[in-house]
């Protein structure tokens, strides 16, 4: 069966246009067509000037996050048929500046991500420079943080967060969930560092638990839960391990030479 779908794309170039306006394209439907496929068809055959960001086409890179029929989604991970309508409206994500058309500026998003120190922090510098073994992790400890490692930084959670919409200094669900991911990691010793950054008037306490972040995450991550779990550590004023404690455990575990001292 062949039919056309109506694809309305928000067009906006901040350097030229005063306000955004929708432009309609007619795209021939095909079995298994995703919204990204439809957009690329419109761009390739009807209007080369449509600006959109995409890369992997398999929900791994998070580049093609946009609002489809009013809801933030990955365009490559959304089939036209699952929308239940042949009329599709595509807009850029909320809570971000528009660079052009469907491309948003994620600069502030990644800046906030950076602020929560999204990597393991260890005091045993010499072990990291000259490794003698592995930092082992118990399976149950991995289970506690595993879902948060699936984050692809697409920005959908942050774009749908009502607190981010009103409070520009709020780190947002992605950054807070990542703070929890590293803070709860039993190999990490940077808890105090993150806690001091997040125990702020615009920090972790400003989440109102609307839950849209968890409802919309295309990877099934539950940032709202991560934020609630993060609050336990922030209330305690520290992470599960202080500086140097991980190194002592590393020495005891026998996975390395145990020569590291802090």
């Amino acid at each position, binding site marked *: 069966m062949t039919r056309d779908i109506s694809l309305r794309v928000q067009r906006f170039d901040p350097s030229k246009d005063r306000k955004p306006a929708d432009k309609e394209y007619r795209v021939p439907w095909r079995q298994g067509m995703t919204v990204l496929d439809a957009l690329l068809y419109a761009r390739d055959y009807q209007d080369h000037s449509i600006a959109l960001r995409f890369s992997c086409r398999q929900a791994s890179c998070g580049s093609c996050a946009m609002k489809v029929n009013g809801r933030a989604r990955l365009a490559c991970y959304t089939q036209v048929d699952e929308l239940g309508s042949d009329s599709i409206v595509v807009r850029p994500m909320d809570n971000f500046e528009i660079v052009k058309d469907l491309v948003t500026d994620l600069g502030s998003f990644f800046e906030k991500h950076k602020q929560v120190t999204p990597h393991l922090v260890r005091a045993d510098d010499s072990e990291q420079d000259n490794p003698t073994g592995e930092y082992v992790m118990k399976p149950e400890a991995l289970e506690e943080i595993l879902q948060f490692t699936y984050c692809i930084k697409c920005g959908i959670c942050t774009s749908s967060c009502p607190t981010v919409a009103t*409070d520009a200094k*709020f780190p947002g669900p992605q950054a807070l969930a990542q703070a929890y991911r590293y803070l709860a990691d039993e190999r990490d010793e940077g808890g105090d560092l993150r806690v001091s950054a997040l125990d*702020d008037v615009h*920090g972790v306490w400003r989440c109102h638990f609307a839950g849209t972040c968890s409802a919309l995450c295309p990877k099934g991550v539950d940032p709202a839960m991560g934020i609630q779990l993060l609050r336990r550590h922030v*209330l305690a*004023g520290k992470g599960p391990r202080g500086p140097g404690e991980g190194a002592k455990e590393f020495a005891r575990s026998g996975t390395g030479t145990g020569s590291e001292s802090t």
Partner: protein
Amino acid sequence: MRESRLMVIQYATALIAVVLVSFHLLMQGVLVSYSTAISYQQILSIYGNALYAGFLEVLLIVVLVHGFNGVRIILHELRQAVAWAKWVDVGTVAAIVLSVAYGTRTIVLAVFGVQS
């Protein structure tokens, strides 16, 4: 003060307020008919009981701290300028102190039977 401490105060005052307000409504709206409860004489007679007056003072402080701290949070979300944040914090403390002082004055005057 760390934001986490302020939030603990916020949650604690919320829980305490639920208990105190429930008790207050029970005493003034259930055990006594509403029309009687809001009569001038009935209200004054409450203050004749020092224990109940003390209870009202605690209720006053708990509700005002919770309410103004809640407004502080909303105002911080409204704007994020440094100067604004400073004035919101100062204003919150001032509002709590002044409101508690005024409410306490009313309770003290009522307890000692002084007509204001």
